[in-house]
């Protein structure tokens, strides 16, 4: 049985990315009032979450439908593994290459994005194609 690539759901991918980027900018501006470095670090912290998460969403919706359920689950596991690995690599790169870095701003923005992103996906869900 060959997997079907026909799209069943409409992914609001751009909408998610736009809202997440807007959230990062707002949080960065809030940290910017403390210092320029804090604002920059907050922006980087948000990006560390958004980039692996965009990959996860893209990979998870590679296959759709009951006929491809085994491929959906396999892709979900692989996407999660890559997402965690990418996050670790990005954090390591920031702590090694970005000098100096405002750690509270970086981790706070990352944690806020981690909590807010599933809520965003709950309110703006993939809709079935008509």
């Amino acid at each position, binding site marked *: 049985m060959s997997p079907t690539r026909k799209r069943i759901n409409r992914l609001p991918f751009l909408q998610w990315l736009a809202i997440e980027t807007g959230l990062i900018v707002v949080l960065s501006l809030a940290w910017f009032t403390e210092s320029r470095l804090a604002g920059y670090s907050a922006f980087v912290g948000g990006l560390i979450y958004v980039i692996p*998460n965009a990959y996860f969403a893209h990979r*998870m919706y590679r296959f759709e439908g009951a006929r491809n359920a085994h491929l959906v689950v396999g892709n979900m596991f692989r996407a999660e593994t890559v997402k965690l690995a990418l996050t670790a690599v990005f954090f390591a790169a920031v702590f090694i290459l970005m000098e100096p870095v405002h750690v509270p701003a970086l981790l706070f923005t990352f*944690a806020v994005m981690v909590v807010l992103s599933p809520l965003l996906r709950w309110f703006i869900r993939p809709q079935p194609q008509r």
Partner: protein
Amino acid sequence: MEMVIMAAALIIGLGALGAGIGFGLLGGKLLESTARQPELGNQLQTKAFIMAGLLDAVPMIGVGIAMYLIFVVAG
């Protein structure tokens, strides 16, 4: 120094263990429920996607803190 590395290893290891168990259960239930009611496959996939985001929240924050411990505190 060694204790900091140990702490980071515990954070990453236990976080990965929890995420692994959670994703195993989530994937298993998704397959099971899709097999029971194939017409709900799309809705179940969307719900699994949202739950996956909630499930990996704590391990992701743990990875961030562990990297901070390894590269800033111990480094």
